């Protein structure tokens, strides 16, 4: 009897310590053994992450996940997308339900330092804007004194809104919803005068309204919203994998390597391209992947510019200009450290 009890105690203790150790083990090994990447995505935002009628996810954030899957498995389809609301996303990543969170998440100091998370880069430079009905005759955020404003809870948007209206001494009424869909629906039904979120999101959501032409996006951008993929704190190798996946896509664009010409580029004498595509050096092995990791990414997903234009740029309905998201060589902010 006593022996059984003691055995149960030991078993309980070991199971506890095992689960404690697992939380710190390499995410990459886990993803490889599972054979599929678990990616936390949004609940549906055109251009960033939206499933189509067949259930295929597309978007610039989705391509981030597909690129990581391509680098690991040489197959961009080996991703399971798990839709997360703004308020649930961090808990889901912390608890290990997803390996990577890629859903228009703003990099802030408190999220980076106190949530046990690490941001792996910035795949979209955004800022917060406002959308109103044309018939209101409002042309500036500063004229929104006394307005009702719909927003999504658990976002930096909610905080920036409070900051901006406080700083400009404007009164307003906030109506916060848990899901993006509910927020847009409430705005459309007339519950609010204005809807606020990241400017890219405003353009995307405007397309979903019944009469997009009746709504305008106000010119002010009231905040910095650097959006990027997020991983758990404490797994540096996995952080490197995600970070360099993004950098590889940027370097590919800078070097002119595209989805179409990547096979030709394998024969390129340019040492930078050779290092990128793995024909020289062992850069992939250093992050636990094969040396042709970047080749796989470009072959399956394309470079950063291609992903941008396809999802949010001229090749999409959103038609957002590159702006701040152009490469540094073209006056934008997108800049990747060299592969060497």
């Amino acid at each position, binding site marked *: 009897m006593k022996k059984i009890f003691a055995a149960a105690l030991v078993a309980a203790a070991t199971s506890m310590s095992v689960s*404690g150790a697992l939380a710190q083990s390499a995410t990459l090994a886990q993803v490889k053994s599972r054979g599929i990447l678990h990616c936390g995505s949004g609940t549906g935002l055109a251009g960033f992450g939206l499933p189509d009628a067949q259930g295929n996810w597309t978007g610039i954030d989705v391509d981030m996940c597909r690129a990581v899957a391509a680098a690991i498995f040489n197959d961009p389809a080996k991703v399971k997308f798990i839709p997360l609301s703004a308020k649930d996303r961090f808990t889901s990543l912390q608890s290990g339900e997803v390996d990577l969170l890629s859903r228009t998440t703003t990099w802030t100091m408190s999220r980076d330092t106190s949530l046990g998370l690490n941001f792996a880069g910035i795949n979209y430079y955004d800022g917060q804007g406002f959308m109103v009905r044309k018939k209101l005759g409002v042309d500036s955020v500063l004229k929104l004194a006394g307005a009702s404003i719909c927003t999504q809870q*658990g976002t930096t948007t909610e905080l920036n809104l409070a*900051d901006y209206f406080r700083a400009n001494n404007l009164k307003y009424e906030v109506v*916060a919803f848990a899901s993006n869909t*509910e927020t847009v629906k409430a705005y459309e039904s007339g519950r609010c005068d204005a809807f606020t979120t990241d400017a890219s999101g405003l353009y995307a959501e405007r397309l979903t309204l019944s009469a997009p032409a009746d709504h305008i996006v106000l010119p002010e951008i009231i905040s910095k919203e650097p959006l990027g993929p997020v991983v758990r*704190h404490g797994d540096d190798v996995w952080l490197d994998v995600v970070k360099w996946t993004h950098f590889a896509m940027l370097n590919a664009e800078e070097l002119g390597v595209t989805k179409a010409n990547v096979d030709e580029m394998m024969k390129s004498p340019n040492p930078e391209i050779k290092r990128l595509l793995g024909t020289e050096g062992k850069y992939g092995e250093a992050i636990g992947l094969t040396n042709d990791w970047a080749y796989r990414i470009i072959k399956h997903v394309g470079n950063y510019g291609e992903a941008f234009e396809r999802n949010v740029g001229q090749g999409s309905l959103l038609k957002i200009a590159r702006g701040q998201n152009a490469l540094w060589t073209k006056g934008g902010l997108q800049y990747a450290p060299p592969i060497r």
Partner: protein
Amino acid sequence: MDHSTTGGGASTVAGSRAATSDEEGVKTVSTIPTETVQPGKASLFYDPKIRGYVYQFALLAVVGFLIWSAASNAIENLRAQKIASGFGFWHNAAGFDVNQKLIPFSASGSTYGQAFYVGLLNTLLVASIGIVLSTFLGFFVGVSRLSSNWVLSKLAMIYVEVIRNLPLLLQLFFWYNAVLKPLPDARNSIALPGSIYLNNRGLIMPNPQFGPAFQAVVIAFFLAVVLAIAFYIWSKKQQERTGTQYPNGSITFGLILGLPLLTYFIAGQPLSFDLPQQGRFNLTGGLQIYPEFVALLIGLTTYTAGFIAEVVRAGILAVSRGQTEAANALGLRAGPTLKLVVIPQAMRVIIPPLTSNYLNLTKNSSLAVAIGYPDLVQVFTGTVLNQTGQAVEVVAITMAVYLTISLVTSLFMNIYNKRMALVER
């Protein structure tokens, strides 16, 4: 005198019997230890009493160990992942706004702790009003369902069947869109008499501003309530003694309405109103009742009333038919029969399930999150959790709060139940 002597005799007989059995008891008690001590030397393990204690202690130790290891494991992992823990966030600046707040709250000066109270009060507000309204509606529907009026009873039946068999979340969405959609926008508000406006931002009405002398009116009101109760008790006693009936209703009404009103005019009308004004977007000033609150209140009230109606019907049917027949035979009409004979007896059956319905209503109010009403779950487990990232602490606090609210509700209902229960002698 006769009675007392026989009684005394009986007690002495009983006493002597008790004494003899006591002696026997002493004997047996004294013999047991001498018998058990000898084999007891062999092993304590075979003593059923001690073995029982050992098992219970072991169970307690296992449960304690599981809780302790789960907690320490969580703390360890949080620390390893560099996730902040502890309750230090309580005093950090919140930085977000809430529209409906019963206490002052602003993004600039308020803390997460204050956000918690804003959410808690909003939950309590909707739950308490919902409980009162659903009780009235539930009783009405429940009684209607038993009515001899065919149309009324069928309507009540349809209400109960429809409401009880649809998910509450769906009903909330229905009410939210049904409340919002047909109302005009803020610039074309429906103006009701008394400077009250109705639009898709809610119901905006004059906000009463109480002057310092208004306290006298409040005191007068409570005084009137006390007086009315005192008069009621006195008149009941008087009625029992002399049979004279007093016009209780009108005297109570006159006291409670008249005394504060009189004080109000003597104090120089210390009440003014902040009237809503048409602003650029919306009416400004005034007291605003938000559509989210209205939708949630209607949803919770109608839903819970459906269940309460069934509880009430069951309670009334549990009262034997003979009671009604007896009341009829005494010449009581249908109204007094229900009020004086059936309902008091039915209450005993109704109260326990009624308590669970009150608890359900309170817990269901957390569905507010779906329609943007800033209740505890929306503000605290939603925004605060997300901003601080401290899921364990925030969820634990929220669970403790709901547990407390539910236990307090149960406590009061149990006290009430004890008062209503059949006193058996």
